[in-house]
């Protein structure tokens, strides 16, 4: 048992802190709206800045831009990035399709995609969920049929996050309907501008456009766009979803948001209420316990085996992320109802954060649903860890 970081780790933390705070421009870090063109630009610029320093895809194999970091270093990188308010590398690129191609793709595929994926020259989106599948991902029905040198894709995907910005999509398709459902799935790469691909925005309750439906109608892609082996897509999908043990819980970002809420509450006078103080103390303490758990996982995860506490990170991490977003709404009280004031910037005297607090709160209701709902996490804990 040892509290202190090693001298190297401390130097590493300092290096990260300095870079994120001093070398990522402030305008890229603050007040980025979601879902608009300005947002896309900020994401791309940030990732390219990070990539230039080797900080965009540290978990990848070193030959493709990864870093030979310990899990603790990855944790530090991730936390410092969030604490500084830096937009993290696009998950679809950095955490999802990149590692899959690096591990399972052909040499041609690696050559064609990896560098551009790391640098966000290609923006990827995910074609997994379907309207009738929900948490039961493997029951998907989008089909890909081999026709000569092509795959022909037909079907519908949904919840495709930021698909409106994407150049390419990685799609799970059923390529063999005659075996048990997990066994007949392949992963295929498809350009978003291919003929027959249509994107339909889904409006969310926060008023924003973040997710989409994607329709495939006789979409043809060359056979080489198949990732790895035919019918092995489920394996890749599981690899992809279980790939990251670092950054499962958005601790740094939530800490930052809680500090902002505290600061604003002081400004508005809401912090004079001891009951609000008590809420903040509780949240800070739960967040501390969560951060320490994330550190424990990072510092002491042995080899490739997922630490049992990973599901705790996801579960508790989203609960706290949501609670802090709820707190910020409370801090602004009735001023928080004027969310649309963000669109008439000069025509409103409401504090900027008052305008975005509720949309953020509403948007984050998704955090306990997407990416393995909290019910799925409880199932994992009960089944895999407790053996129930």
């Amino acid at each position, binding site marked *: 048992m040892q509290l202190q970081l090693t001298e190297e780790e401390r130097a590493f933390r300092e290096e990260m802190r300095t870079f994120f705070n001093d070398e990522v421009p402030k305008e890229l870090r603050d007040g980025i709206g979601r879902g608009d063109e300005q947002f896309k630009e900020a994401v791309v610029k940030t990732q390219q800045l990070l990539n230039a320093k080797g900080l965009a895809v540290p978990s990848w194999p070193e030959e493709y831009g990864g870093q030979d970091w310990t899990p603790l270093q990855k944790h530090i990188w991730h936390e410092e990035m969030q604490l500084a308010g830096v937009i993290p590398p696009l998950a679809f690129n950095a955490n999802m399709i990149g590692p899959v191609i690096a591990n399972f793709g052909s040499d041609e595929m690696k050559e064609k995609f990896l560098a551009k994926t790391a640098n966000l020259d290609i923006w990827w989106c995910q074609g997994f*969920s379907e309207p*009738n599948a*929900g*948490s*039961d991902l493997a*029951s998907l029905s989008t089909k890909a049929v081999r026709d000569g040198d092509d795959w022909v894709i037909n079907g519908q995907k*949904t*919840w495709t996050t930021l698909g409106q910005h994407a150049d390419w999509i990685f799609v799970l398709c059923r390529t063999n309907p005659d075996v048990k459902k997990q066994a007949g799935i392949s992963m295929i790469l498809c350009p978003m501008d291919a003929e027959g691909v249509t994107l339909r925005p*889904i*409006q*969310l*309750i926060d*008023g924003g456009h973040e*997710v989409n439906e994607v329709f495939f109608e006789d979409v043809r892609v060359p056979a080489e766009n198949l990732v790895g082996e035919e019918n092995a897509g489920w394996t890749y999908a599981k690899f992809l979803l279980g790939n990251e043990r670092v950054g499962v819980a958005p601790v740094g970002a939530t800490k930052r948001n809680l500090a902002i809420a505290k600061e604003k509450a002081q400004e*508005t*006078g809401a912090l004079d*209420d001891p*009951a*609000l103080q008590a*809420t903040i103390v509780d949240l800070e303490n739960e967040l501390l316990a969560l951060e320490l758990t994330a550190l424990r996982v990072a510092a002491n995860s042995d080899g490739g085996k997922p630490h049992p506490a990973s599901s705790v990170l996801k579960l508790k991490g989203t609960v706290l992320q*949501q609670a802090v977003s*709820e707190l910020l*709404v*409370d801090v*602004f*009280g*009735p*001023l*928080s*109802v*004027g*969310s*649309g*004031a963000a*669109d*008439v910037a000069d*025509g*409103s*005297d*409401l*504090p900027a954060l008052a305008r975005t607090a*509720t*949309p953020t*709160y*509403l948007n984050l*209701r*998704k955090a*306990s*649903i*997407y990416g393995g*709902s*909290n*019910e799925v996490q*409880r199932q994992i804990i009960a089944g895999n860890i407790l053996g129930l």
Partner: protein
Amino acid sequence: MDFLLDDEQEALRDAVRGLLKGYDAEKRRQVTDADPGFDEAMWKKLADMGVLGLPFPEDVGGSGAGPAEVSVVAEEIGRVIAPEPFVEAVVFAGGLVAALGSDGQKKEILGGLSAGELLPAVAWMSPHGDDEGVTVDGDTLTGVKEPVLNGARADVLLVLAEGGLFVVKGEDVDAHGERTSYRTVDGGRAARVSFDKTPATPLGDGGDAHDAFEMLVAIARIAYGHEALGAMESGLSMTTEYLKTRKQFGVTLNTFQALTFRAADMYTSVELTRSIVMWATMVLADAGDPALVKDAARRSKLQVSRAGRHIGQEAIQLHGGIGMTMEYAVGHITTRLTTIDHLLGDGREQGRALRENLTSYGVVEPLP
């Protein structure tokens, strides 16, 4: 002691329910996409049914009904989360005029409101979170109020300034000031309203409006409780319906006990809320001590805040992704519950106020 509606109240409920029947998610979305954020035609229909004049005296065009009738309407509005500003315009703004206005003001504003021809709005919040921001200079007002619910659409604004209430015509604001409108969280509209030596008339005799304003805040809190209750009941029934029909892993979701138990907890929240908001309305109807009404309003709002968050959050969670979309009504419910929660004081604010009297009584006595 009776929690049941009488026959007339039930008839009123059925009539309003019938009128609002078509308000599904798609209709609501269309309506709220365009200014003024509610359906003018529906507003007129509500007027024609007598709903907009419900609590006002007959001599100004109302029907002289009591809090129970108002609560029935608010609940039906909430049930389909109709965007028409019943509580805002009729209960709160209209209530202020009824309480303080001169005969002429009552006739004009309440008459117009009852007929669906004049929309009043209350401008009380400043963008700094207090109720200041506007100063009085002779017969004019200067300053900023924001957010003003329905502030841009309103024909008449009731402006809280220096402790008094003033009647300002919308057109006078446009001539001497500005109104910038935008969407609110729940798809409604609010505005920044700036006054620049804008002509204004005192509401009633122009004295200190504090007591009457506090009382109307209490009455609006109670009415919001019913609107929220209606929304919660719909949120619960949509959720149970979804659990019964949605299939995952080859079975319907109600096969999963962890989910059905959470629906049971939602039911518990809704039932407890129903009891307390109905009680608050009965306390109001029983008139008597204004302090009792204010206390009941705070208690009702506290429960509504807690239950509204519970129902709003769980309804989405149990629906999964579909609950996050504007295509599906359940998310609309959450946005409305969130809005009501933060108007006129959330649960923490009610708790803070209730703490102040904590040692002045032993037990809470609900019955006089």
